């Protein structure tokens, strides 16, 4: 029996990428990780995210993981709750030393990571190669711009190398939850377009006699073409129909 892919739920795929950013600085002493951050920030100022061009992308995000956090506030476990009482012990700072000694350990990452987390339609087999190929074909310029400061990206200059690189940076999901539907994105967008248009049609065509309503409905169907996903639709990433 084939092993279950933890990144797949139905037809949806959870892609998690941690790409290590080089620990270096530009001539102006700006950390590479901060350049990556600035370039991603610039995407927010564009009218459309570059990701609108990447087929089958439902939702995705980018961020930079600078470091991990050290927990110091008390948790629900009795040990951490009662630890603060150690400061009440007599003999000066002994209690406090004990308390500090029992705090969780401090961890720090050796590199900063570019995190790319994406949910896309991959089909029941989870076509990751197809998705990444489509991503490279659509926005290879922006990919080079963002990933260019990452370890191991120097050799990436075509779709195959990009796919291989991304797989090296991929992490498996321990649990992937899908609360939406997992149809292909063009199907979802067409359905949302129909929902929006039909809601407006229903409001605008109240109180008509049967013949007039029927004529308007016929014209409506001809306009919206419900079975044609390539016809009128809600463009990806757009805030209006």
């Amino acid at each position, binding site marked *: 029996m084939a092993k279950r892919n933890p990144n797949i739920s139905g037809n949806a795929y959870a892609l*998690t990428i941690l790409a290590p950013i080089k620990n270096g600085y530009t001539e102006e002493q700006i950390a590479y990780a901060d350049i990556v951050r600035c370039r991603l920030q610039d995407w927010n100022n564009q009218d459309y995210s570059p990701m609108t061009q990447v087929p089958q992308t439902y939702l995705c995000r980018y961020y930079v993981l600078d470091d991990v956090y050290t927990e110091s506030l*008390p948790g629900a476990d009795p040990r951490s709750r009662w630890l603060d009482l150690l400061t009440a012990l007599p003999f000066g700072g002994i209690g406090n030393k004990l308390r500090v000694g029992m705090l969780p350990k401090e961890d720090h990452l050796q590199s900063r990571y570019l995190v790319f987390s994406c949910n896309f339609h991959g089909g029941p087999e989870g076509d990751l190669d197809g998705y990444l190929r489509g991503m490279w074909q659509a926005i290879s310029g922006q990919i080079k711009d963002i990933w260019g400061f990452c370890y191991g990206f120097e050799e990436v200059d075509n779709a195959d190398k990009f796919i291989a690189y991304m797989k090296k940076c991929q992490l498996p999901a321990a649990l992937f939850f899908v609360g939406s539907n997992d149809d292909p994105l063009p199907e979802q967008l067409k359905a949302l377009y129909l929902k929006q248009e039909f809601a407006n049609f229903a409001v605008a065509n109240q109180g008509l006699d049967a013949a007039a309503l029927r004529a308007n409905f016929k014209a409506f169907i001809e306009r919206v073409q419900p079975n044609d996903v390539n016809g009128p639709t809600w463009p990806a990433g757009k805030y209006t129909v």
Partner: protein
Amino acid sequence: MSNIAGKAYAMNVITPIKSYWAWINKLIFWAAIKFPGALTGLITLSLIHYARWVILKDSEFPHLAKEQPKEKLHYTYMLFFSNFNGSWDQYVDSFTFAIPGGLDLFWKWNIRYPKSVTLTPFHKYIRYNQIETIHYYSAYPLAAANDVKAAKQVKTALTQFHQDSQTLSDDEFMAGYKTLLRGLQHDLGDMYPTPIVTMAAYEVQERKYKHEREQAALAGGENG
């Protein structure tokens, strides 16, 4: 920085967990996959598009080059990614009020997890361990997860009615149309942006205006 794309909010949380407890957590996640009934609470909440948990220890951080220093960490780390509708408070509080047990089950082995009840320590825990998203993209920024599911119902019912109504008389058409609307009353509804709850939502509004102006210019061009 933008945790918001239209109606969706991107939450990223990273929390430490001792390696031996990480195995317990993985086992709980495995059980949740095997017995999907365990996720009924999440489904009922109905405000999540997609969510995932990733657990990794230091040796599992991607290592791409010899010159890249290897990670050496005391703890294993749990990464949480969620795409949900509504504000941060609405989301976090809905877990606390609706499925506190399920939430605690997923996080209880994490170091210094305060439990989801009471609210304030839980809020502090999430805020402290949350990482801001720099760029967040949604293919359908005006749609909540419920809109995406409802749209499928609308499309199916609409195409079926169109197909079935070809041979009907006008009166039968009218009766069928009313039945269609009654059947879809929970699925219809215009999609609008949510009220502004953060400055990031202001940016969303600005982008919507830009798209509307662009649309109007396009329509003007077609008419003129």
